[in-house]
């Protein structure tokens, strides 16, 4: 396997290709849009979605090789590319991956074709623009996972913002204007301060006379900031990532954005964009400022926020009348687990956090796709408008149940593996936080099962629901990979864990956490 990849030089071009391909796709779509401007809507829609699916499909296929081609144990960046960009400012086009990034990249590339399928019939207005934006968004997201230059990272980070803003704002629901602006401003608030911090870091690293240096490897190893400075800089990064994650209390953009976004928007937002925040912590905020991040006050504050978010998100989820909002708040809860896991600084918890990242991407993505499917049929997301539809949509019911169980974290599904690892790891350094966080397995069951009951169980009392059609082949087909992933990661997560292990361990070691347990049982006195 390896030799085949070497023979075609796979590692030398794959990352660049992944970034360029969606842009090309967007260009093709725009060209198509010009041609289709006068023809009828159905033809426009089908040409747009076919092109988009083609590009996303190719993107997905070519990316899969990364799974094997990359040396996960190596401490060097894999598939790295360095090109000059803005030399006089010390900014380079420098990309590369490690195990953590590969997994997230694959999550992205594999999920995107599904979002196209999920939008297959629901995007009727300006479909070319929609898919073009989705493609551009993909480049932004992949770029974030690959960037090894702070400025490049920031550019990709912001690159995601506008397409998503437009996707929510143009194709969204009733309150889309409010939601999209809120999304934009929240995210920008965080990232602008990070921008200042990045400039500062670069100039510090460059020294008085040289140009600034933004090379990841340099800035993470040379930064010798005073404690105070490090705290401020960390704070700036923290805010950017905390908003994106989102951590309590910076989360209120999320429910609005999720609810108003079209299905594809919600899926991308939940499944991938939220991961940017946690990825940012792992890749940038923590390695850059290990002392600030492990400062007891900082650490306990972050862990407290994470735990509050976990419990709070779950409790607020329970009382949501809107299914999408419910899932949105549940995201707050799930992402809290990721933060808890990362900041507990043990191998298990960090690896678990990475798993939760992926699991949340899969499960919540699937939930939003499912919501999209019934929304398309009923044009409502209110839980109270449903009930008993398992009778008329049995396959939908099965799918929704499986996905909900995965989100609840029932063992055997992916959800369990992540949460379990986070908690068992976090317990070693943050026992109280872990125990409080663990209570959420109860609330998660309450909010999701209650919603499940009110949607697919209970009497079929609403006449509008009686005629609902069950899922068609396209819908089943797009869910099946997700369901398969749910079980695969639940039953045999070892391939993923092995791939992220080295990178996670490096982080934990750098942060002075507990890479390996050091069990010394001191006999207690009674």
């Amino acid at each position, binding site marked *: 396997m390896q030799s085949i990849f070497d023979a075609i030089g796979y590692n030398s071009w794959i990352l660049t290709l992944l970034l360029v391909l969606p842009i090309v796709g967007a260009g093709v779509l725009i060209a198509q849009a010009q041609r289709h401007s006068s023809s009828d809507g159905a033809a426009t829609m089908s040409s747009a979605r076919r092109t988009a699916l083609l590009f996303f499909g190719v993107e997905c296929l070519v990316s899969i090789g990364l799974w094997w081609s990359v040396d996960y144990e190596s401490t060097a960046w894999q598939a790295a590319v360095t090109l000059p*960009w*803005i*030399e*006089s*400012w010390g900014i380079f086009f420098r990309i590369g991956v490690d195990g953590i990034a590969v997994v997230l990249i694959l999550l992205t590339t594999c999920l995107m074709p599904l979002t196209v399928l999920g939008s297959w019939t629901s995007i009727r207005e300006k479909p070319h*623009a929609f898919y073009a934006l989705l493609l551009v968004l993909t480049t932004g997201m992949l770029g974030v996972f690959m960037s090894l230059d702070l*400025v490049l990272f*920031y*550019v990709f980070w*912001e*690159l995601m*913002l*506008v397409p998503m*803003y*437009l996707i929510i*704002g*143009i194709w969204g629901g009733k309150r*889309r*204007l409010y939601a*999209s*602006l809120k999304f*934009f*401003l929240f995210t*920008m*608030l965080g990232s*602008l*301060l990070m*921008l*200042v911090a990045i*400039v*500062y870091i*670069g*100039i510090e690293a460059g020294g008085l006379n040289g140009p*600034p240096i933004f090379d990841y490897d340099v800035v993470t190893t040379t930064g010798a900031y005073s404690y105070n400075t490090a705290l401020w800089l960390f704070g700036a990064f923290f805010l950017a990532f905390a908003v994106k994650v989102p951590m309590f209390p910076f989360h209120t953009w999320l429910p609005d954005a999720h609810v108003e976004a079209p299905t594809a928007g919600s899926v991308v937002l939940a499944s991938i964009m939220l991961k940017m925040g946690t990825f940012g912590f792992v890749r940038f905020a923590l390695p850059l400022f290990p002392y600030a991040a492990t400062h007891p006050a900082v650490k306990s504050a972050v862990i407290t926020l994470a735990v509050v978010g976990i419990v709070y998100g779950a409790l607020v989820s329970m009382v949501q009348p809107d299914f999408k909002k419910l899932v949105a708040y549940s995201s707050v809860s799930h992402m809290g687990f990721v933060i808890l896991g990362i900041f507990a600084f043990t191998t298990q918890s960090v690896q678990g956090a990475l798993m939760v990242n992926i699991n949340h991407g899969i499960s919540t993505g699937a939930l939003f796709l499912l919501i999209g499917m019934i929304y398309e049929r009923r044009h409502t997301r209110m839980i109270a408008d449903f009930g008993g539809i398992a009778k008329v949509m049995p396959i939908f019911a099965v799918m929704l149940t499986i996905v909900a169980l995965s989100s609840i974290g029932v063992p055997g599904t992916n959800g369990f593996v992540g949460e379990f690892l986070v908690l068992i790891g976090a317990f070693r350094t943050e026992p109280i936080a872990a125990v409080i966080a663990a209570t959420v397995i109860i609330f998660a069951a309450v909010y999701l099962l209650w919603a499940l009951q009110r949607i697919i169980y209970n009497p079929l009392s609403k006449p509008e629901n009686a005629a609902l059609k069950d899922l068609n082949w396209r819908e089943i087909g797009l869910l099946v990979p997700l369901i398969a992933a749910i079980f695969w990661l639940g039953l045999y997560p070892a391939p993923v864990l092995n791939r992220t292990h080295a990178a996670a361990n490096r982080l934990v070691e750098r942060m002075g956490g507990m890479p390996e347990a050091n069990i010394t049982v001191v006999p207690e006195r009674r």
Partner: protein
Amino acid sequence: MIFDLSVPGGLMGALVPDIILMVGAMVLMLVAAWGPESASRQRTVGFGSLAVLAVTIIAVLVYAGQGATAGPGIIAVDGFRWASDLVFLIGAAATIGIGIESNPRDRFLSAESHVLVLFATAGMMILAAARDLMIVFLGVELMSIAVYVLVGINRSSVRSAEAALKYFLLGAFSTGFLLYGIALIYGATGTTSLPVIGERIAHFALGGHGMLLIGVGLLLVGFAFKIAAVPFHMWAPDVYEGAPTPITAYMAAAVKAAAFAMFFRLWIESFTLIDGAWLAPIWWIAAATMVAGNVIAIAQRNIKRMLAYSSIVHGGYLLVAVVAGTSLGSAAFLFYAVAYSLATFGAFAVVSAMTRPGVHATLISDYDGLWTTRPWLAVGFGVCMLALLGFPIFGGAGFFAKWYVLQAAIASNNDLLPLAVILVLTSLVSAGYYLHVVRVMFMRPRPENAPEPAPLAPLTRIVLVGSVTLLLALGLFPQPLISWARTNAAVTAPEARDPFPIAPTLR
């Protein structure tokens, strides 16, 4: 090419581009005045002006390409001058380009408007070249008087007249301050030559000289007025709203750039040694400008007023580069001026295209759902808005402009981090109104009764497409522009020893 400025020939040689422009402008003025106003004359003079500009640009490029320098004298012959000149000249070309097409729509056909743009540009070029306070004054007035007239050029419009009156009265008022400042500096140092002022401040340790400081303060008032910094900004929204749209763009971009160019030279050549005195005031002016401009812009409904406040705000951002004060700051200014001018002209090209004959107020809500009828117009305008917001990639070079300013601020020895933070936080506020425009264009439905916007006239289209393309291209590959800005950053030019050092008697 080295010009000896002490002989008339050398001086003339160093001023060739300026002279080309002025001579061309005078000829065209005669053409314009030769007969009655008419559409064809307006166009003829307009294209003639463009031709003059083109020749001037070529001259500037030739001079810049040859690396022309000069000995001591009253004008500077250096990269900073040529770089600034290019910004003004291209801005003027864009103004005239839009004006040729938009003036008839606005129901005035005065061919003089284009010529006046040339004169104003000549003033700016002189300003950028000035190494003597007298030349500074001359340049300011040449520029300002022409612009006073330009603002009121639409005689049929009461708003235009009101704007002109306000601009004129307040402009003259601020000129008074500027002039008094010059007088006091002259009084304190005994010279009007910028490098000599600098030398004497150093030589005689004038850093705490009261008259000098008050002079500099008054000079600053005049400067702050020209760039519409808070609290000297009040004229700007009214004037920008009342002036013909191309002139508004011209004021927002070129006039402001000229003032900054003058200021950078002034500071770097003369006043680096009294940093301590004026850093704090400019710091506060910059902060106030960013905060107030952004906050008030939020409340605007009229697109030109909104852009006026936006221009105030960008003045504030540039002041941050000024406070940074290093040559990095002036390089940042050059970069910023280009990016900002591109975005401004792009935006005003759209505003001009969207202005309907006889309707004076262009509301932001007129852009509702523009995307559905004129997608590319909306995209172009959106790019300009994001550029003004300083957003990467989609805002093109706008991001790197802001980046440059931040970098200059943070890299300077002065502790400007708080100002940098204010800059980014107020940028967040600015997202509120820039995105509002994007949002009305893309996310609101087009009202049923909304008129179909007229197709983009060719020159306006060139301005828009050119601006947006350049913005985006420079947003992806800013390196050439950075190199250009760096090599042409304002530096202290070599100056012969002060021939007759006279100790200032006034203490």
